[in-house]
């Protein structure tokens, strides 16, 4: 099984530092969600993994081999990005055939099925496709190539609601049939909340969270009740944000609760979903570093 290891990856563009000493391992048969707000460095990180841009420092190893200009390492990865690197004059079916030259084992049958389902005409030239259909074509290739690591950078950008739904369904089917490493980068969390097993959260160029979805949700709480009691109960806990309505207040806590404290009858403790956790962790209110 393929393993991708990032060691102390940093990236500067001019004076601004986009990534700061990222350490990361992608392994096993897992769907990772690479989350972060716009400009958090998600695309930059993926571009560095596939060596489209160089890192300022640090290294990426794919199965123990440095990825820089290493065909063997890079060929284990397919990166679907917003950028269009295919020739505008090439027809869709030609692009499929060319892809198969470099990613042997390209699943033509699946690709044809998918072009039918998405109603993508394989005789059209890439340059003639709409933005949405260019994304669809790249998504289809990503599901049909036999690479061990599939990186999807905003795979549903420009797709309409029906196509988004269809894409994630096909992704699930492809993954269930052949589990491998998927990394889905997106800022639309609701779409992928049920898909991702492992959350990678980028904030200000740092890997803020790197844990299973289950572990994260198991330690995320909403403490709701009268303002005074809620604040007494959450004092000293890792409160990442709150909502309030008059005297009613919800404190969002990320981390362990204090078992010693007595929960007043008027206060309730509930779990929160990934979207809420994400918003509260990334909106800047939360400054406390995780221990």
């Amino acid at each position, binding site marked *: 099984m393929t393993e991708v290891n990032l060691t102390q990856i940093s990236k500067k563009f001019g004076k601004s530092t986009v990534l700061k000493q990222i350490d990361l391992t992608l392994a096993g048969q897992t769907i990772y969600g690479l989350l972060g707000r716009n400009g958090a460095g998600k695309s930059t990180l993926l571009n560095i993994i596939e060596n489209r841009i160089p890192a300022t420092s640090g290294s990426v190893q794919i199965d123990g081999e440095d990825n820089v200009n290493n065909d063997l390492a890079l060929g284990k990865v397919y990166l679907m990005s917003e950028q269009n690197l295919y020739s505008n004059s090439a027809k869709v079916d030609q692009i499929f055939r060319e892809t198969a030259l470099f990613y042997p084992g390209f699943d033509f049958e699946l690709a044809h099925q998918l072009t039918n389902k998405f109603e993508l005409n394989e005789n059209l030239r890439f340059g003639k496709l709409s933005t949405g259909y260019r994304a669809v074509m790249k998504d289809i290739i990503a599901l049909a190539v036999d690479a061990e690591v599939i990186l999807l950078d905003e795979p549903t950008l420009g797709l309409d609601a029906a196509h988004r739904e269809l894409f994630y*369904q096909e992704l*699930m*089917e492809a993954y*269930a049939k052949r*589990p491998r490493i998927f990394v889905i980068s997106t800022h639309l969390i609701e779409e992928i909340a*049920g898909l991702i097993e492992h959350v990678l959260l980028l904030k200000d160029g740092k890997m803020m969270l790197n844990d299973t979805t289950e572990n994260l949700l198991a330690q995320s709480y909403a403490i709701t009740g009268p303002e005074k009691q809620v604040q007494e109960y959450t004092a000293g806990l890792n409160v990442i944000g709150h909502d309030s309505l008059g005297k009613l207040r919800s404190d969002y806590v990320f981390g362990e609760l204090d078992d010693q404290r007595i929960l007043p009858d008027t206060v309730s403790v*509930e*779990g929160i979903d990934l979207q809420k956790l994400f918003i509260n962790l990334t909106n800047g209110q939360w400054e406390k570093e995780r221990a």
Partner: protein
Amino acid sequence: MQFNFNSSEPLYLQVAAQIENAIFLGSFAANEQIPSTTEISRDFKINPATVLKGMNILVNDGLIEKKRGLGMFVLADAQEKIRVKRQNEFFHDYIQKMIVEARNLGLGKEAVISLVEKGFGEK
């Protein structure tokens, strides 16, 4: 079936609950095959590992069994088991909660009993 990704209940428990409910209501009959992990995963865009985890709860509860190479099948006594389980949980899940609410509303025992009788259509 429907899954609420915004619910505070873990997704795998929702998967287990939904399938259990479908068995109880007879949508998945005894000895019949239930949809595969891949199908559920695809249709509801849920990670196959999560679906499998939910199904394993039902396997441990003795409601479904795995037949090698074929898939998951509803056991003959599954519906009955669910009925017994839900009967046992009825007091905790409904009666106790109802009494708490009744007290908050200032309804006495007699008032509640008469409402229950009304609900059963006896008055």
